[in-house]
């Protein structure tokens, strides 16, 4: 009985306390970004798609070895002046878990992660990226990638 009256008196008071919180939040400015029109800048360390400076690559294959999901594959050949030359560098984006181990392990920082995050596509073939092609994101479906 005592509890009943206690609840009867203090219940509405606590309800009003909660309402005060919601009303205080009602007058604060909106904090959400309207996504397609407004975009947040990516942070400096943001891990987007894997990207490559082909000139810097020394073909040590450490990135291929460290990758937990085997999404990278590279081949090299002997160039005209008997120097090693990159032949192909394939990046299977659908397997990538964006862990960043490859970029961390690269001794010459040839491999890095760019800031591209809108990577949805309707064509599965586009998920396999040739990292040697300088125009590699040109055929990408989404306009913001370029």
């Amino acid at each position, binding site marked *: 009985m005592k509890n009943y009256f206690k609840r009867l008196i203090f219940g509405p008071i606590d309800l009003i306390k909660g309402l005060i919180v919601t009303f205080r939040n009602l007058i604060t400015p909106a904090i959400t970004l309207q996504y397609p029109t407004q975009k947040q800048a990516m942070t400096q360390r943001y*891990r987007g798609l894997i990207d490559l400076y082909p000139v810097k690559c020394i073909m040590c294959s450490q990135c291929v070895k460290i990758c937990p999901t085997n999404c990278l594959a590279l081949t090299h050949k002997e160039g005209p002046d008997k120097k090693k030359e990159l032949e192909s560098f394939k990046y299977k984006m659908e397997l990538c878990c964006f*862990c960043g181990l490859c970029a961390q392990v690269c001794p010459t920082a040839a491999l890095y992660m760019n800031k591209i995050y809108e990577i949805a596509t309707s064509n599965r073939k586009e998920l396999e990226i040739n990292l040697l092609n300088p125009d590699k994101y040109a055929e990408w479906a989404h306009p913001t990638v370029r």
Partner: protein
Amino acid sequence: MKMSNMHSEQLCVNMGPQHPSTHGVLYLDLRLDGEEVVDCITHIGYLHRSMEKIAENRTYTQFIPFTDRLDYVASMNNNLAYVLAVEKLLNLDVPERAKYIRVIVAELNRIASHLLAIGTFAQDLGAFATPLFYCFREREKVIEIFDEVCGNRLTYNYMRIGGVQFDLPEGIDRRIKDFIKYMRPKINDYEGLLTNNPIFLERTKNIGILSKETAINYSITGPNLRASGVQWDLRKDEPYLVYDKFEFAIPTGKNGDMWDRYRVRMDELSQSLKIIEQAIAGIPEAQATVKAGRMIKPAAGEVYFRAESPRGELGFYIVSDGSVNPYRLKIRAPSFSNLAVLRELVKGVKVADVVGILGSLDILMGEIDR
């Protein structure tokens, strides 16, 4: 015919696997007598990805990204428990600064995880959207800090064997201090919204009582155990990293009901803020990583390490045969034992409370199924 002689058939209700309040893909086979739950059989395995088997085919470093996907709302704590287990196997000591950084990020993630737990718990009880959105707003701040620190929002992959991936970026300590200053009044907001709200109290007080004995028998850990009145926190009882240098209390409950479990999480929020504040003040200026070598090859042996994750005791048992891959890796996930007790808790309660009890246990299917 007398009413007492009448018997009705039990009704079987399939709750899940796709159900908004099962926090993932959990299938509950509920047997109801009228509106009362008679029995509840949990079926798990819908999110099984065979993490433990994957570990046997990966090197020690390669498995770190996979630990992110165990408890995906507290990835830092998963990373931490795993790298500490490997470091224990290697007998590797990490620099003091790395230890402080690890404490800071782990506690920040504990806050993010508890905020999600409180928000979804309130939503499960019917407080639609408001507390959840407020909690998500604050959680977003933590996630933004993590985005700056390691470059990702949920799957951080920040810890490394022998330290952390990067040192903290410049100016982040001020941002974390700002967050602490911002967060303290927000906790009072939640208190005003939920703690003494009569509707919330009616739904949570004296429902789903988990007694001390049952909790210990089912090896419940984390906030759920502490809500039952057992003062057990690995950060205090088996201190790892630099937790023994900080002052913080272990909040405990009395009855072990849903409200106590909520209360313990709320108190842990402010305790975590307290730890972060002390860690930021005491962080030494030094190198944050130690070279553990690119190929990690521990000597043959076995190790078990447990750490306090937001959901309880997260343990990694690693058997090494001296090669680059673990011979066997077993994960002791806290949510697994926390879910096991559900059957005891829901017997005799109304069907609407099943959702609330499940929410108060704060299970996460990612680490139950692994």
